[in-house]
């Protein structure tokens, strides 16, 4: 694992990121409403993917819980949205996900890799079933209406969450905690012997990644107007971040972001063009991406660049 120091290359990528954010910040002034809604969805997927990679990337523990943390945020907005102002709801949604993740992490992070994946996936369905049962049995309703916000507000809040997330993810990656997480991913036992408090560090990182997912859910809920347990705890939201990260390439910081942008746009295209075959095509892309692009788009690009360079050498 090579941690790139802040070189001129690093400065360029920061400059590029800031440029993208400036362009996005003025989007509501010149873009159409459709573009803005599309961009909100893209930003949501980027936020989910980056926060997933924050924990699962370095440690190698595949968490399938994003849908659970997103859903907790969504339900917080649905329950509290009418009585509390929006920023407070987002903070509560984020904290609720954070504490749920701490609890789950403390219980399960000692499990072997694959069991951790199943367990986290079980969490999604468990919460979904419990809320469904509660609603049918006690409130005799299914689903709730969410207070609606206008598209521009949702867009700006989502953009702000993404900015905070990217800065946090980058700082953690460059800090000693980032190195400790990568060492855990390479050899957990050796890392513990070297003085890393493995369980505490993993649990807290799991919580931080859930924090941003909860905030995302709380703001995105206002876009959906009506939600029920099947919409809020949709297992697809657990797979999307994993797939987007693999699709983009997990080795670099920008790989997952690239994967999320390309994939979110692809999803929009598929849903509008082939609504009946959308899930089928999704499955095919998933299998092909895992079997033929283990290093993602970034890996493919690097391979091509290397091949091009080798040809150049052969010519001279």
């Amino acid at each position: 694992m090579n941690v790139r120091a802040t070189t001129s290359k690093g400065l360029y990528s920061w400059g590029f990121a800031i440029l993208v954010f400036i362009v996005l910040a003025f989007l509501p002034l010149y873009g159409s409403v459709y573009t803005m809604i599309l961009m909100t969805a893209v930003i949501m997927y980027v936020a989910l993917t980056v926060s997933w990679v924050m924990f699962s990337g370095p440690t190698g523990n595949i968490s399938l819980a994003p849908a659970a943390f997103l859903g907790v945020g969504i339900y917080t907005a649905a329950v509290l949205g009418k009585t509390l102002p929006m920023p407070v709801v987002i903070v509560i949604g984020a904290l609720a996900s954070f504490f749920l993740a701490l609890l789950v992490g403390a219980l399960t992070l000692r499990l072997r890799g694959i069991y951790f994946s199943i367990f986290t996936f079980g969490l999604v369905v468990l919460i979904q079933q419990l809320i469904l049962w509660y609603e049918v049995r006690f409130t005799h309703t299914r689903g709730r209406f969410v207070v609606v916000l206008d598209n521009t507000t949702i867009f700006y809040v989502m953009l702000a969450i993404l900015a905070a997330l990217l800065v946090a993810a980058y700082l953690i990656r460059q800090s000693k905690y980032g190195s400790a997480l990568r060492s855990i991913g390479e050899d957990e036992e050796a890392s513990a012997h070297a003085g890393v408090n493995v369980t505490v560090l993993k649990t807290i990182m799991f919580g931080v990644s859930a924090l941003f997912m909860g905030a995302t859910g709380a703001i995105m809920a206002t876009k959906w107007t009506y939600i029920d347990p099947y919409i809020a705890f949709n297992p697809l939201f657990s797979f999307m971040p994993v797939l987007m990260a693999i699709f983009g390439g997990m080795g670099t910081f920008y790989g997952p972001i690239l994967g999320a942008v390309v994939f979110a746009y692809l999803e929009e295209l598929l849903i509008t063009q082939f609504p009946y075959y959308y899930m089928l095509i999704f499955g095919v892309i998933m299998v092909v991406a895992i079997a033929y692009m283990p290093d993602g788009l970034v890996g493919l690009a690097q391979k091509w660049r290397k091949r091009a360079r080798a040809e150049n050498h052969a010519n001279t």
Partner: protein
Amino acid sequence: MIVQIIDVVVAGLLLGGIYALISVGLSLQYGVARVLNVAHGEFMMLGALSTWALNRAYGLNPLICMAACGPIAFVIGYVLHRTLIKRLRSFSPSAAVFEGNSMLASFGLLFIIQNIASIIWGTEIKAYTFMAYPVSVLGALFAANRLVTLAFAVVIGVVFYIFLVRTRLGKAIRAAAQDPTTAGLMGVNINQVLALCFGFGALMAGLAGVLVSMSYPVHTTMGFEYTIITIVVVVLGGLGSIPGSFIGGFILGLIGSIVTKIEPGLSLAAYYLIFMLLLWIKPTGLMGK
């Protein structure tokens, strides 16, 4: 009161037979081939829906369908391992990475199989009747088809157990389960054995699907719920242990039957709770090493 208890217990055992049979399949796929195949329930769904389609179109006896569905499921499973899974196995740097990749790939398979089935058959719930006359078991009444289901599940399980213990190929499979690298060094054709295991797993799921369709309504999204139950049973019984799968299957069938009697909306949640508690307390399972 007594009849009610017998009712719940026998219903649990009948359900448990099916759970056990599917779980033997997953136990082979995960215990030996190290693929946590989340598309396992989809093979069962394919078995169930093709039986329904054959029965409706030609009035074919479901028991005859077993003879056709089993081998077809086996071939699909075998080919899948020979192509996709083998590829994942060859480039994954470690066993843990392979397990993660193959699980994610099987989620992709789940979406593919489920959606192809929905395009062919539609998503509505379907059923046909076969041997639906009542039979008395210790005073409680059950449809004859459910007893046939249990009998077949037990017979298939026992036959497969004998195959594993008594034949040369069975011995190779057990060796591969313990240590694939060493088994390979001892002259076991490891890719062949793992692919066969994957095929046998699909075969069991396909047969279980045929059996399920005789006594329960079927639909194209039924698979995943069975996959979840199967994972719980396999973890409960211990990975790669066939008697463990049967014990786990019957225990889960009983619990499911009791919870359904008291609070039907909570059965899936109950399975999860058991699973979570179990992973936490004894991750190696009842019969695990």
